[in-house]
């Protein structure tokens, strides 16, 4: 979080009708980071987002871009600033009188200087990345809700913007597509280094991709910090909100959610410390999911991850806890297990993976290869959980690599 913030909201107040929707918002958005804004419905998240892009003018306070107040900028400066932004509307806001192709092409067409053939190429590329095939000439009203959502995403990303504001980009999508959208946002951030602000209800999934989380409540920022901070927060409101939304299972893979996993981890640690019952952890990560993203698309990579999770589940016992540790990582907590036994558990997984066709979704792309790394550590009573996880990360070795 080095340097001064890219966008800064200072005491922003907005009154709509008789409601004080925003009541002194202070928030910093840093370059190259993804900031998630969470909060109850109607708490002013969308209004906040619209202030950032200038659809709403604040009734009080100011919005600074690179340290300069936006309201003091000249008209050409504001236009130049606006071109750096893109906005994904909650209800898609697609132009219902234009076809899908024209909808996505519009921001490019209206920006002078683009060649028509180049525009069509870029639009097709975006549509393909979002798994939208053969819909070019359809109208938005002929598409399903999930497809409209993806067309809206394509339209926002087609201009390769520097800052993208997402208003609930995954609401109404199925788990694989939802994860594909998340992985796309995260992949884009890695590749183009864009700055993202995501209003989301997807807890805990949004924590995997966000570097910062802000919770808004009654028009104020109730909490601001890293995803780890917010999951450890002691504030009752914050806790209730997160726990209320969090599902005990990960949507995509069906394994436990991170908070359940962490809870089991803590329980095992205290069993070890009190009763000297050993336990081990295995941290498995699919490190080249991004390559699959690039070659076969985000849907394929998410499907592969899901299949990999299935293998892990098949090989684990009822007492073992598998949970999603990060967007591409699964952790398994193995109670009553020493390091040697944990290693044989890993071997079992690698064997079954070798004997099954994990490649189904990748059939159409032959040269995709993916690998899984695993780190195995037996817990020591005197070491903390963080050290344990760090040791697992450090000790990772190749568990599986597809045959070249």
């Amino acid at each position: 979080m080095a340097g001064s913030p890219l966008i800064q909201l200072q005491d922003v107040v907005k009154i709509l009708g008789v409601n004080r929707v925003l009541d002194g918002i202070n928030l910093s958005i840093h370059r190259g980071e993804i900031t998630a804004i969470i909060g109850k419905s109607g708490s002013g998240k969308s209004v906040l987002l619209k202030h950032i892009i200038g659809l709403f003018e604040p009734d009080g306070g100011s919005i600074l871009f690179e340290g300069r107040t936006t309201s003091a900028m000249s008209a050409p400066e504001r236009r130049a600033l606006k071109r750096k932004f893109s906005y994904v509307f909650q209800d898609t806001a697609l132009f219902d009188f234009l076809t899908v192709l024209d909808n996505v092409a519009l921001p490019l067409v209206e920006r002078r200087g683009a060649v028509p053939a180049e525009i069509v190429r870029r639009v097709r590329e975006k549509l393909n990345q979002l798994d939208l095939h053969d819909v070019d000439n359809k109208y938005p009203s002929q598409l399903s809700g999930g497809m409209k959502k993806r067309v809206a995403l394509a339209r926002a990303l087609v201009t390769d913007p520097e800052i993208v504001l997402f208003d609930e980009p995954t609401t109404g999508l199925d788990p694989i597509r939802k994860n594909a959208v998340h992985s796309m946002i995260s992949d884009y951030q890695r590749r183009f280094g864009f700055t993202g602000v995501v209003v989301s209800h997807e807890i805990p999934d949004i924590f995997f991709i966000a570097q910062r989380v802000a919770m808004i409540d009654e028009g104020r920022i109730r909490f601001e910090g890293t995803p780890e901070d917010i999951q450890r927060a002691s504030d009752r409101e914050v806790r209730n909100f997160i726990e209320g939304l969090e599902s005990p299972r990960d949507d995509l893979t069906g394994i436990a959610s991170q908070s359940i996993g962490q809870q089991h981890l803590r329980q095992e640690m205290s069993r070890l410390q009190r009763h000297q019952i050993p336990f081990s952890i295995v941290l498995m990560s699919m490190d080249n999911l991004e390559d699959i993203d690039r070659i076969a698309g985000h849907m394929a990579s998410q499907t592969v991850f899901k299949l990999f999770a299935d293998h892990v589940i098949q090989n684990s016992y009822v007492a073992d806890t598998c949970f999603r540790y990060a967007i591409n990582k699964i952790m398994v907590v193995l109670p009553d297990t020493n390091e040697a036994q944990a290693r044989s558990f890993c071997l079992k997984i690698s064997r079954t993976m070798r004997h099954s066709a994990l490649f189904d979704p990748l059939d159409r792309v032959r040269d995709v290869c993916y690998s899984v790394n695993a780190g195995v550590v037996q817990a020591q009573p005197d070491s903390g959980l963080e050290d344990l996880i760090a040791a697992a990360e450090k000790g990772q070795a190749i568990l599986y690599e597809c045959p070249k």
Partner: protein
Amino acid sequence: MPSLVTLKTPIAALGREVLVFTRDLGRVFLFFARGFLLIFQPPFQFDKIRQHIFFIGMKSVFVICLTAGFTGMVLGLQGYYALVKYGSTAALGSAVALSLVREMGPVLTAIMVIARAGSAMAAEIGIMRISEQIDALKTMDINPLRYLISPRIAAALVSFPLLTAIFDVVGLFGGYLSGSALLGVNPAFYFSRAQSSVETSDIIGGFIKAIVFAVVTVTICCYQGYYTHTRAEFGAKGVSISTTSAVVISCVLVLVTDYVLTTFLL
């Protein structure tokens, strides 16, 4: 002092109304002025203007012909029975032609286009507003006035005079149908009187009216749709009220401006 308050209240209310009215009038004018000037901002939106001319103009031709035909026939009929009392049925041609060119043509064309295209404009833009499509344009740095309103203004300015001309011609033949073909006025007299009585200034006056009506209609209809979100009613209800007021206000304004223009043009 309650008595003073009672005295003040209606004056204050009147003042408030006048202020609101003046403010709205200013807004409507600025809305038109911006939309009009943006027509000339390059790159020109020829394609969009062409599409709107097709919608406002071409698609109105049939209904305009129908209205003009019957209006002309009624004028022929009424004119004949009025003139026959004085034995001057030969003047039927000039009566029909002058009323069409000076009044009926521009006014009825405007009212028919309001009913057909004006209501559609208000509803379309209103729906774009409530479904955030206008906001979406803004986020893409596309000026919604230039993208949505300017082509419509340009198209109306082209279509109204042309439709008025069609109305005049078809109306003239309608008058011929009832006056000459049915009631027996000499067709040669009918057409020669029509030709001799209508002067260039009448035609120009009719076109000036058509252009002013185009401005009034397209501005009011687009404005009502564009500011749908500022109404007390939301969603579909808001759009329906916008459409209704677009039609009512522009029809009334067409008749009011017609009177004002006529006093100047005569």
